[in-house]
């Protein structure tokens, strides 16, 4: 039996067993490939050698972690959902999985973490409840920071919609130029703090719409993307779309978009969701173990030379030459110092003849000399 270590879920009421789309995808893969497995919800990825969840174990050893490595491992074990695909379909499957994992996910992260209303009122409270004290104090913020840095590196900003809208409207040019000269503190005093902005017009949703349109056209009216049997692509699409469809959010732009404009994707997601039986659960990590592993992970990250990778078990091919060169340099150094007499090797010495003939002084002799000198 395989054990899948996965991030926990604040959406168990909705039938979702992880908040992480990669973990959900692997859970769907295991379920649909009918492998025997049990789920362990953890709050830290430190058990995985490369700090990556999901992680699959067989027995006591971590076999693989990360979506693609787990899929390759399961394929070698005979659980290959892509077995009946030809070469071209395999190629398309890889491309579409990449599109979902690397492009569509941006909209999901934006919706959860950069839409302040969603994060403050739905995501953060649920994640805090999932992780418990004291992890609830910083893990939701860490996830938000991670999402922000990822989206920023892709050129996606939370304020992009407002700036684009006001900049493109020529009638607002003079008003905007005047507004830009008004100190912000005055604007806040006059207009009040805006609690939450509507970010449904952010360009990230337009990009997501293109991805969804491509997926919808690929799925068309079929039961699954490549016919009547599910493949790895189906599990990935389910893993990501289910997190867009099932959790209730105050600003559910993605959910509305999928239901209204791409109903076949919504039905597809429901179809797979109906097949997802509750997995057998392994013992959950208690909060003390979670805190401990989080501390250990933080210390390892701080102490390692590269803060983004844990020490690997790969042999350093140049280690022998490094040791020889350092030992050689030290040997030359100490040899030179000993040869020149700067350092001497301690050992037993025989007394020199001069030392042997010197009379031994007694304390009375010393005192008599001192008294004689002083008088």
């Amino acid at each position, binding site marked *: 039996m395989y054990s899948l270590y996965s*991030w926990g879920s604040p959406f168990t009421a909705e039938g979702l067993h992880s908040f*992480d*789309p*990669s973990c959900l995808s692997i859970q769907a893969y295991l379920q649909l490939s009918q492998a025997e497995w049990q789920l362990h919800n953890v709050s830290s*990825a430190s058990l995985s050698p*490369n*700090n*990556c*969840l*999901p992680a699959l174990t067989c027995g006591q050893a971590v076999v693989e*972690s*990360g*979506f*693609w*490595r787990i899929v390759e491992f399961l394929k070698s074990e005979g659980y290959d959902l892509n077995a009946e695909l030809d*070469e*071209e379909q*395999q*190629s*398309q499957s*890889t*491309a*579409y999985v*990449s*599109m979902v*994992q*690397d*492009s569509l*996910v941006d909209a999901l992260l934006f919706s959860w973490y950069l839409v302040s209303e969603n994060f403050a009122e739905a995501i953060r409270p649920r994640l805090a409840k999932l992780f418990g004290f004291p992890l609830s104090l910083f893990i939701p913020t860490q*996830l938000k920071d*991670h999402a922000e*840095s*990822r989206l920023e*590196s892709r*050129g996606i900003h939370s304020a992009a919609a407002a700036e684009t809208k006001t900049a493109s409207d020529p009638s607002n040019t003079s008003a905007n130029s005047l507004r830009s*000269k*008004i*100190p912000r*503190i*005055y604007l806040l*005093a*006059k207009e009040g703090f805006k609690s939450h902005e509507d970010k449904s017009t952010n360009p990230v949703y337009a990009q997501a719409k*293109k*991805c969804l349109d*491509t997926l919808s056209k690929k799925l068309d009216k079929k039961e699954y993307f490549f016919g009547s049997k599910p493949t790895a692509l189906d599990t990935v699409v389910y893993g990501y779309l289910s997190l867009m469809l099932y959790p209730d959010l105050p600003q559910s732009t993605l959910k509305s978009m999928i239901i209204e404009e791409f109903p076949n994707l919504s039905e597809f997601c429901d179809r797979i969701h109906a097949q997802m039986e509750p997995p057998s659960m392994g013992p959950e990590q208690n909060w003390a173990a979670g805190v401990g592993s989080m501390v250990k992970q933080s210390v390892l990250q701080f102490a390692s030379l*590269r*803060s*983004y*990778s*844990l020490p690997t078990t790969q042999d350093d091919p140049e280690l022998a030459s490094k040791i020889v060169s350092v030992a050689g340099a030290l040997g030359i150094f100490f040899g030179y110092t000993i040869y020149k007499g700067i350092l001497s090797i301690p050992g037993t010495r025989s007394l020199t003849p001069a030392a042997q003939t010197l009379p031994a002084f007694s304390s009375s002799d010393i005192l008599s000399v001192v008294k004689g000198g002083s008088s």
Partner: protein
Amino acid sequence: MATPEAPLREILKSLSFTQFPLCHIDPFYTPAVIPRPQLFVYPSPGITSDVECLRILALLKFANYEFDLRYTNEPNSSPNAQLPYLLLPDGTAIDNQHIEDHLSLGESSMAYYSLAKHGLVPATEYLVWVDPVGVSAFGDKYLGGYSVVVRWALGWVVSERVAKKLQTGMPEYGAALDGDVVYENAVRAMDSLLVFLGDRMFLDGEAPGRLDALVFACLNAFLEAPVKSPVRTLLTLKDSKYRPLVDYVLRIISSYFGEKADSVEPRVA
């Protein structure tokens, strides 16, 4: 004078230097008028080997855009501090993210473009900035204009920034940056693109497009890099199954860059 509706505004306006700078001086010299648009890229013998520069260069060639090539080692001269950028005769500078808006190219497959962008490009960035072998080989290329100490410090800063970007770009939250995983993703992308290319001349059909520019730039970076990488090893093996991709790169070079396509020889494993 303070208005009845907004007395505070006028007071604050007078205090908050909204007229800064206080005076404006027209420039003494005007820039020379250039006859054709100029594309500024990193210098390199032959074709530029920087992936983004080569991608834009290829796009302009595919679109038959008339331009002159200029070399510079200073990315801060670009509007978004990244090379390449295009300087138009009217003085407008267009950064790399908006150059495509000026070109008329067909649509590329979104799925395969995403695959190439998130499978091949991270591997090239890892090779140049994070892999210790690549950093020592490419450091002079990008930071050669600085002294040794500054080059070392800048190289470390850029390396950390690129590593952070690659790490946050991985699908799994918090996963450590593993070079093996990065190269595996690149090989997986190459497998898929190889099948997609098939017997066709270009990935975008009869005429090359955005996808061809991106894939060509990435593969050329691996082939021309002066360091060994797992991807280059796979591409240049004798009787490699990726030989069609190498031929594809050489085909584009000979068709659009006018160089003899014999720069890559298959290497015996």
